């Protein structure tokens, strides 16, 4: 933060900070879901494709509902649709992984391809755009503010708080941690391990859907390149946040910081031009490693 401010005094302006947080909301919300999946010992590589598919489908549904219904109703139906698809995708992942006893890496790598393909098919390779009037009606969800705080930031905060509460203060959260720490022990202690896992994927799906709900009004469209590589960013946020990739222990708060950090690096690079544009990704890489190194110091 200090470095960021030194590099560019604009960094600390309220409007810039609010921009940064708003952007962090997408990856952040997805990463909260990923925290559950990873703590339980799983992984979901498909989140980016899933976001693209959900965005595309929900736009198609809303466009199809046409102007016959009021736009508020249409948007509400679109949102429900998105959440339903997200939950269904999560359920599919969880079921195939637990019933089929296949590595989550493989299953979600498979659906990564499948989801994106289906979207490409739906959009015939192009993009799917929300009708203009709907787009205007929907846009406050992203651009609007409540008490001076942009809505995506509020949603992000709510999701993070709820996620933290579920993880640390409910039975389910405890079971997620126990399952990730030692699946056998959890099983012997009467935890329904399969169900716990399935639910983590459903949570992940719902988080992706929620992030998509905020994403659609921002850009008003979906295309085969929507959400590309979001999975890496989301997982990176989780792991920078101090959750172990092999599961068992982790914290939502760390994930939130991780997501904000990733976006901040990008923002600062955009605000300054000290280095060749070709090297942006290199700077990001170096900062990520350094931050992970410092995080580690704090934990031990």
């Amino acid at each position, binding site marked *: 933060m200090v470095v960021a401010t030194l590099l560019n005094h604009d960094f600390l302006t309220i409007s810039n900070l609010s*921009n940064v947080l708003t952007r962090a909301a997408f990856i952040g919300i997805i990463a909260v879901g990923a925290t559950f999946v990873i703590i339980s010992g799983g992984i979901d590589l498909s989140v980016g494709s899933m976001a693209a598919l959900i965005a595309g489908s929900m736009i198609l549904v809303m466009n199809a509902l046409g102007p016959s219904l009021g736009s508020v109703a249409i948007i509400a139906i679109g949102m429900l649709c998105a959440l339903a698809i997200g939950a269904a995708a999560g359920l599919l992942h969880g079921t195939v992984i637990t019933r089929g006893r296949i590595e989550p890496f493989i299953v979600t790598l498979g659906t990564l391809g499948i989801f994106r393909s289906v979207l490409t098919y739906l959009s015939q*390779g*192009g993009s799917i755009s929300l009708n203009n009037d709907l787009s205007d009606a929907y846009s406050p969800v992203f651009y609007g503010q409540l008490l001076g705080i942009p809505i995506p930031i509020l949603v992000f905060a709510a999701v993070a708080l709820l996620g933290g509460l579920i993880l640390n203060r409910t039975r389910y959260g405890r079971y997620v941690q126990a399952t990730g720490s030692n699946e056998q022990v959890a099983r012997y202690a009467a935890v329904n391990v399969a169900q716990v896992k399935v639910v983590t994927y459903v949570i992940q799906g719902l988080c992706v859907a929620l992030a998509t709900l905020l994403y659609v009004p*921002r850009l008003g469209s979906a295309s*085969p*390149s929507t959400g*590309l590589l979001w999975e890496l960013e989301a997982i990176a946020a989780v792991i920078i946040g101090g959750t172990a990739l092999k599961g068992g222990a982790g914290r939502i708060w760390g994930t939130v910081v991780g997501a904000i950090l990733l976006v901040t690096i990008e923002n600062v690079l955009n605000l300054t031009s000290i280095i060749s544009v070709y090297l942006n990704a290199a700077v990001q890489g170096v900062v990520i490693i350094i931050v992970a190194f410092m995080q580690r110091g704090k934990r031990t």
Partner: protein
Amino acid sequence: QTKQVMGVSIPSADHGWTAGIVYWANQTKAELEKMYPGLTVIVKTAKDANEQANQIQDLSAVNKINSLVILPQESAPLTRPVGNLQKKGVFTVVVDRALTDPTAQSAYVAGDNPGLGKVSAEYVGKTLGGKGNIVVLRGIATVIDNQRVDGFEGVLKSKYPDIKILDKQYANWNRDDGFKVMQDYLTRFPKIDAVWAQDDDIAVGVLKAIQQAGRSDIKFVLGGAGMKEMVKKVQDGDPLITADVTYPPTMIRDAMRLTAKSMMTKATMPKSTIIPSVLITKSNAAQYYYPNSPF
């Protein structure tokens, strides 16, 4: 004279053509800042539509730009963000990929994607004498790719109905995929008269695959965009690369020049400037060859 800031937002250099865009944007920045002392040009590259939307937000909020020259990663998702800037009084010039809502762009400077497809189809049709089997390698699933392929197929259908497209697969504007897809086409089709690769990067892979298979039935490979290595081949009379179709990355230079001129001299900028795709053959190749550009 007042200080003016021009923001330029372009895709990051992830393949040959975008590398050309980055190169020409930086060249032109130097040129314009020398020409107009009050002008600052800020060039930003973005890896995807999302980052680009973030970026132009930063350009407006932090760098306080007066005008924006943008080559959108994708049209639809950037329409609203560019529109927002325009509403804040930024003069928005969109390059290459028109926004879905044309009112969001103050001016438009573009290459001609359907035109590239049409010019290519004309060349293929004419050179094959209106008859033959061809294969098509597509780019990445995007609007641009659809426009080019639609333009190409439209001309073939109406003017050269006896030319048969055996198959079209995505090669992602990428040499490796061009090689792989072509290798499989060669396995699958015993007789191919010509290849429309649509893009010079893909064409590089296609050439290698043909070379490896040692096939002599293919009369020519038509790429697109005007990569310097390909233009050189045309110039040198390569047997397979007999022509190329331009889709020049210099369009970013043209757009920046026009924008700067209108900002600094209050000259009005034409609402729409189309840079046509032209056919490069041995006779005119020299004028499209830029040895210093990365592309």
